[in-house]
């Protein structure tokens, strides 16, 4: 069971337990850094919403809650399948591991597909700042403030979408490696570390959904 090399114990560690703890702490340090990175973007949102609350509510009403809610469900399901994939790896169940990773890939792709449909519709309605934003047909006095909301919407969802895309790329590496049977109950940290990344991406969306889609409903 105890292999050495890339898919086993690395020589700088005493044992697998120490190696696992180091990988986890390293990944959590990265996640903490990501929290602060997105924190800056969320803070920008908060400051401008504090300054122009009506424009933000109006801008939010231009987004389709159904797409946002559907994508929230899709990402929550993908978080569940990743958690199950880690569990399958811990139990040495290769079939389940590959299956749950494929399910995650499916949900991640669905998320990007929905995002593509949403962005396309914003393009058709001339709502993309810097590309074709035209506020003259909007029922709002200060269309430039709505443009500001749309800029922040695209910055936040764009950064988040980029993270989903990176997750898809990592999955495209994890899946073939899993099929080859490289991950066992003694060496599965890459799956677990990817899981941490993916759950973080899910958490960002948990906050983005109400803050972007739901502030113009009531």
């Amino acid at each position, binding site marked *: 069971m105890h292999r050495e090399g890339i898919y086993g114990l690395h020589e700088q560690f005493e044992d697998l337990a120490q190696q696992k703890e180091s990988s986890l702490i390293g990944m959590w340090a990265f996640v903490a850094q990501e929290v*602060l990175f997105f*924190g800056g973007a969320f803070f920008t949102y908060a*400051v401008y919403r*504090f300054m122009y609350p009506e424009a933000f509510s109006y801008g939010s009403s231009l987004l389709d809650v159904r797409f946002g809610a559907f994508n929230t469900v899709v990402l*929550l399901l993908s*978080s569940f399948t990743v958690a199950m994939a880690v569990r399958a790896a811990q139990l040495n169940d290769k079939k389940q591991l590959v299956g749950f990773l494929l399910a995650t890939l499916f949900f991640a792709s669905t998320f990007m597909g929905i995002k593509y449909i949403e962005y396309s519709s914003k393009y058709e309605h001339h709502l993309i700042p810097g590309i074709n934003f035209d506020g003259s047909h909007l029922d709002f006095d200060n269309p430039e403030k709505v443009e500001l909301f749309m800029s922040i919407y695209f910055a936040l969802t764009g950064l988040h979408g980029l993270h989903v895309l990176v997750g898809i790329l990592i999955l495209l590496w994890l899946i073939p490696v899993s099929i080859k049977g490289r991950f066992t109950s003694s060496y599965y940290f890459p799956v677990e570390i990817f*899981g941490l990344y993916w*759950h973080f991406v899910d*958490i960002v969306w948990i*906050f983005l959904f109400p803050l972007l889609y739901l502030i113009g409903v009531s």
Partner: protein
Amino acid sequence: MEHITPTRVYVLVLIALLFLTGVTVLAAKIDFGSHVINNIVAIAIAVTKATLVVLFFMHVYYSSPMVRFYAIAGAVWVFIFFVIGFTDYVFRGVIGIPGI
């Protein structure tokens, strides 16, 4: 060596997360009298969902103190960042700093 979470826990957490997503959509449609209250409700639900993900999906509930420390560090620092940042933006006009 490591803790293997039972499937039942993951399924329950997933159901709770989906349920809270429904609650947050419904709560946004209710007029609590002030946008501030709507906001607090939305953020409280999001924080609850994030906590469930961190504790169970990300295994922090079963992790070593060192991993927990790193997990909490990100949240603590972003909180400090928001408090100091907002102190600036909210009170700038109140004190009447010259040049603004």
